[in-house]
């Protein structure tokens, strides 16, 4: 893989990942508005907009982050399972994306309640998105910290690969 393609893949991964973090932060803000606003239209609007916003923003960014991360692992010397920090990031990404996909049902149900004129405002308000957005932010922050600090540690697979490289005669 050419250096240009590597840089492009890396740029895509950083953009998707940081974008995902920012989008979740925006959802946390929306969730707080939904809980605290005194205006009925605003409260209903918050829960109505969450579902399409999640489909059009959160999910593409999550999938983009996951796929571009897999590409990064495959085209760089870091690999996918050689270093603990890369593996940990991958697990965080898969876990957070899975939770998001499962949570789409909740977004849909909250939108249905918000769209119901007969539903009282207390029924429309929901604290669940606050918890989920906060959990997602913690997970994504942990992934960012791992990516920046890259703590040392080779997995057993990484150690075996390293030993194999050591044993291989050097070609001149």
């Amino acid at each position, binding site marked *: 893989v050419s250096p240009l393609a590597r840089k492009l893949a*890396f740029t895509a*991964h950083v953009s998707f990942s940081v974008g995902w973090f920012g989008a979740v932060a925006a959802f946390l803000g929306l969730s707080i508005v939904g*809980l*605290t*606003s*005194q*205006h*009925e239209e*605003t*409260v209903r609007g918050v829960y109505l907009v969450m579902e399409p916003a999640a489909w059009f923003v959160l999910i593409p960014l999550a999938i983009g982050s996951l796929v571009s*991360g897999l590409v*990064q692992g495959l085209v*760089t*010397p*870091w690999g996918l399972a050689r270093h*603990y920090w*890369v593996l*940990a990031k991958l*697990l965080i990404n898969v*876990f957070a994306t899975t*939770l998001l996909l*499962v*949570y789409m*049902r*909740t977004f*849909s*149900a*909250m939108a249905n*309640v918000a769209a119901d004129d007969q539903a*009282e*405002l*207390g*029924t*429309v*308000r*929901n*604290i*669940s*998105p606050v*918890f989920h957005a906060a*959990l997602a932010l913690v997970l994504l922050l942990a992934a960012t910290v791992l*990516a*920046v600090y*890259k*703590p*040392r*540690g*080779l997995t057993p697979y*990484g*150690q075996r690969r*390293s*030993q194999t*490289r*050591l044993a291989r005669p050097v070609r001149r």
Partner: protein
Amino acid sequence: MASEPREDQSPAEEAGATTGVPRWVKIFAIIAVVVIVIVIVVAIVGDGHGPSRHSSPLKGGGVGQHGT
């Protein structure tokens, strides 16, 4: 993944510095298990992961419930 291992980095140096499971990995694993258990328990207790579960609406007790 801001930077990559140096091409001239010795594999022995790389492996020697990282033999065994680092402490941060153990701590990370414990936290991960706790989080996963909490998610599973919440999903089971709440009968799945949906709107009528742990995401129960704030009936009668919402902040600023009486909006205008």
